[in-house]
């Protein structure tokens, strides 16, 4: 017998999410992810001065604001030609890396861990400690993490004016040239953050965590909140929960003169592959959108006001060569070739793998952020003069947000925006079914999740959904 469950409001994700479940024999037989909010940013931008994308698109999302800003700046730079300042690009990477680190931290402490403090887990050896540290909006670790995050974001205050919604990142670089003293201040903020990571999150040097090279070594990590998470993960077998299809996508993160700091590419059937932006399509068969499947450079956003019966989400369904792709920190680290990430992917890429992928990325980003600050040359130019935007042209901006691959496709006609299409990380991960009936990544990962007889909001479903760290406001935009 199949029972149907609707799970919502689905909180501790960014934005609004509704999950529909078919449940049979105590497990999920099929899942549908509904993104229930449509705002229409792609339509708002039509007819505007292309530069206005730098002000408007960051406001798609209050948690990935700098990612949106970086994607818009790169789309404009691509459309106009010219070469951004190397020093400016490095500072844009610093701002972006700080946001991504803060987002991973927010996910771990505020969104993901509080579920283990639920009364349903009373009786597990780790539960009492989980209650003390991770109870939602109360736990000691949560207060400490919120403070560490606020202090880390001082870097964005100093260099970018405020967070979220900075306008500091421009096609040619950044608007504020940091001096000697700014470099010292930002180094101090990073020292403080390292202390938090090493005292509280990892309980050991971050380098020791990045040195882990396989899942066994990871499961042997005992210190800090990471160790607490891993003990819980072992007990509840989070590795087996919510496994993915093993197809990963990354646009490449933090561009530098020698290419991105984390590589671009794909990972399929246990092997790396190239990424071809021309192979992306957005399928509208199960979205409340009108039009045909198209590449985002030719795409369009026309909402179906009638919300037709055979569709169930405002989210379009992006595909790469027709296939669903998972994107995010785990995908980035797998594609970049980190041994631990590849071992986690080989083990099925479930809840444990996604969360550990984020921890790994926090640990890897810290020394990178330090190096970018250390390398600031206070006499350098941080903004290059760029050629004027063409009256007619097109540009693409591909970046990696905390949650994965983010693309902006811009078309300019008569000096105004004639087309602007955005495909966000959670558009990939939380896409609905496509014309072949193939479910999106989270829909597929939920199949088989355990549902207790008395559960109306199954815990396993919550762990799996939150392991993707969905950003629903970005998804539909």
């Amino acid at each position: 017998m199949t029972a149907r469950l609707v799970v919502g409001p689905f909180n501790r994700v960014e934005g609004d999410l509704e999950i529909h479940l078919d449940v049979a024999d105590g497990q999920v037989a099929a899942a549908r992810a509904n993104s229930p909010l449509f705002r229409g940013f792609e339509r708002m931008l039509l007819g505007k001065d292309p530069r206005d994308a730098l002000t408007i698109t960051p406001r798609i999302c209050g948690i990935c604001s700098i990612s949106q800003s970086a994607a818009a700046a790169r789309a404009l730079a691509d459309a106009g030609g010219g070469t951004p300042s190397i020093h400016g690009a490095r500072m844009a990477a610093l701002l972006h890396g700080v946001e991504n680190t803060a987002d991973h931290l927010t996910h771990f402490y505020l969104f993901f861990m509080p579920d283990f403090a639920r009364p349903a887990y009373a009786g597990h050896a780790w539960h009492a400690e989980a209650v003390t540290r991770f109870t939602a909006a109360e736990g000691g670790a949560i207060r400490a993490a919120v403070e560490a995050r606020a202090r880390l974001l001082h870097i964005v205050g100093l260099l970018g004016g405020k967070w979220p919604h900075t306008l500091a990142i421009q096609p040619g670089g950044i608007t504020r040239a940091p001096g000697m003293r700014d470099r010292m201040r930002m180094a101090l903020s990073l020292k403080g953050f390292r202390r938090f990571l090493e005292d509280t999150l990892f309980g050991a040097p971050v380098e020791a965590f990045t040195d882990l090279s396989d899942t066994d070594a990871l499961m042997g990590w005992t210190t800090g909140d990471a160790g607490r998470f891993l003990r819980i993960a072992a007990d509840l077998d989070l590795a087996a929960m919510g496994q993915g299809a093993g197809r990963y996508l990354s646009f490449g993160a933090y561009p530098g003169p020698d290419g991105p700091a984390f590589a671009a590419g794909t990972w399929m059937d246990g092997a790396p592959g190239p990424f071809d932006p021309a192979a992306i399509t957005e399928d509208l068969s199960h979205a409340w959108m009108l039009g045909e499947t198209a590449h985002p450079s030719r795409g369009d956003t026309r909402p179906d006001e009638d919300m037709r019966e055979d569709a169930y989400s405002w989210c379009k369904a992006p595909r790469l060569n027709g296939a669903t792709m998972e994107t995010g920190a785990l995908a980035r680290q797998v594609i970049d070739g980190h041994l631990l990430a590849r071992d986690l992917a080989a083990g099925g890429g479930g809840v444990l793998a996604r969360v550990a992928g984020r921890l790994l990325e926090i640990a890897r980003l810290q020394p990178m952020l330090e190096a970018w600050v250390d390398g600031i040359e206070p006499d350098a130019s941080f903004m290059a003069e760029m050629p004027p935007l063409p009256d007619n042209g097109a540009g693409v901006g591909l970046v990696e947000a905390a949650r994965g691959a983010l693309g902006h496709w811009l078309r300019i006609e008569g000096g105004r925006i004639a087309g602007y299409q955005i495909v966000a990380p959670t558009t990939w991960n939380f896409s609905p079914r496509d014309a072949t009936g193939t479910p999106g990544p989270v829909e597929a990962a939920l199949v088989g999740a355990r549902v207790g007889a008395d559960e109306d909001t199954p815990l396993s479903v919550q762990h799996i959904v939150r392991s993707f760290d969905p950003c629903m406001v970005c998804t539909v935009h």
Partner: protein
Amino acid sequence: MNLLWLQSAGCGGCTMSLLCAEDPNVIDLLDGAGIRLLWHPALSEATGREVTDLLAAIAGGTIPLDILCVEGSLLRGPNGTGRYHILSGTGRPMIDWVRDMAHVARHVVAVGTCAAFGGVTSAGENPADAVGLQFDGSHAGGLLPPEFRAAGGLPVVNIAGCPTHPGWVTETLMLLADGKLTEADLDGYARPRFFADHLVHHACPKNEFYEYKASARHLSEIGCMMENLGCVGTQAVGDCNIRTWNGEGSCTRAGYPCINCTAPEFEEPHHAFTETPKFAGIPVGLPSDMPKAWFMALASLSKAATPERIGTNAVADRIRVPPSLKTPRR
């Protein structure tokens, strides 16, 4: 005091900004003010059925609601149905939930310019038919009518800003919890005057450049951004440069213009955000409370009197010419 926070159609950035509250952190601050979170979508444990049960209990009056915070604009589309945002798990448009909750709440607070006036969500063709809680842009009357008063007697309190400064939100909530916020403490757009009586221009580090109309021509130059780069800090309300953001930041401190994000309809300036519209070479939209002729006269005079230090620095990306030192007396 019980507080319920709903996220309507916005980006969630006002919550993300609120989490940047320091000294103390936002959790300690709410504890200290005696404010109990009934539910917040980003912070609370309750999910799914636990939440719908809670909402039903609040709507039915079983659980008293002292403060309702709404973040994000209210979507009336398509065609007045509100179905562009169904609150997940309920099958009901968010605007219906917000109306119900507003009518049982002692205080109703719009957090951010979207919730206050419609904001960025209503930009361009306003595809989702977004409005604010009690304003539609600068016009009184949004989802709720102009005459709406919450049970506590106040209209919707509009903590405008895109995003809101964490201090604006926490201080407003503390004042409400303490019974210290009256209608006289709100400006004509119902924004708390403790931040809305200031202008972004106040304590802007570019004030000396402004005095001489020594202007930046391109983003990254450190001169005043009013003449060429679209800055409206002399007209925009907010104490951004007095209290600063995320440590010591502000938009103008980071070298980009104030776009008046605390104001209704800031999302449609009718020109590119980073370019000052001009008529016959003269910027339109001068400081709001200064006679134009005086402004022009003073501007041309001060421009002619610009010291070399200020003129040179204005078009550089950092200070090139330091202040001169006084020659010691013999």
